[in-house]
């Protein structure tokens, strides 16, 4: 049941990405191109998603003690702004500007390609794996914190 529900949740998220055109890297890069061919669509995608989630999270917390198919609400609790957060988000931003892709749109194209998607995804997984499992062996980073998102 949990597996089928997870699949359906991913499907709805993916439909949102396809319908809004966010699966087109050029539409994302045009959003980031404020000095050029600016396309503000992404702002409305993000804005409407945030508003729905803001209301949805509050209703969920108010109405339920715990999730219908899970043990507890795993809301992140950290609040501190760390150099790791700032530097990581900047690196992410540079990658986002280069490719016009972030993890969700890239994964939604996993089975349809084109080859640029597969190259991007393999490199992304290598990068993730390096930070999660390679980097902690090289430096004693703040890795004891639970990874939430």
């Amino acid at each position: 049941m949990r597996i089928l529900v997870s699949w359906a949740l991913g499907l709805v998220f993916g439909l949102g990405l396809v319908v809004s055109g966010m699966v087109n890297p050029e539409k994302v890069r045009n959003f980031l191109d404020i000095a050029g061919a600016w396309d503000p669509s992404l702002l409305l995608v993000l804005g409407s998603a945030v508003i729905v989630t803001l209301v949805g999270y509050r209703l969920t917390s108010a109405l339920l003690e715990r999730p219908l198919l899970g043990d507890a609400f795993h809301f992140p609790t950290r609040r501190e702004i760390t150099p790791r957060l700032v530097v990581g988000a900047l690196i992410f931003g540079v990658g986002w500007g280069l490719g016009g892709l972030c993890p969700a749109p890239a994964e939604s194209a996993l089975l349809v390609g084109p080859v640029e998607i597969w190259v991007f995804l393999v490199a992304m997984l290598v990068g993730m794996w390096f930070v999660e499992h390679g980097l902690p062996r090289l430096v004693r980073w703040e890795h004891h914190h639970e990874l939430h998102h």
Partner: protein
Amino acid sequence: MPVIVHPTAFTPGSAVLGGVLMGLSVTFTMLLLGRIAGISGITAGALPPWRKPGDIAWRFAFILGLATAPFLVLWAEGGLPERHFEGSLGWFALAGLLIGIGSRLANGCTSGHGIAGLARLSPRSFVAVAMFLVGGTGTVFLVRHVWGG
């Protein structure tokens, strides 16, 4: 180098519709599973070594759901929306690597910080999203207007 620009139209209607779908997915991922629908976190948790065996399958199911979305659109509409992938394979490999590293250092991406985090009014997510935008707009500006002249 991806300096060829394909202009995209501002599409407010489909942007809001897509954003609402994504917001519903993020909301119900918490309501049903108790999880943050952050795609980079879901993906990173699916990478080996699998230390929590009961916490893996739903991640693959969610990603498969994402990847199913284009087929539903293909079936309903008879085609996929326009997509342009400007840049060499090496370019997309670099973008993917930076996205992978950055999302794990920042503990979240455009979904985990951008949608779920902003909806929780998380200070970390506001900083992360600001840095995504600084990195993204700065990179596109350099590539298109300085480098691409």
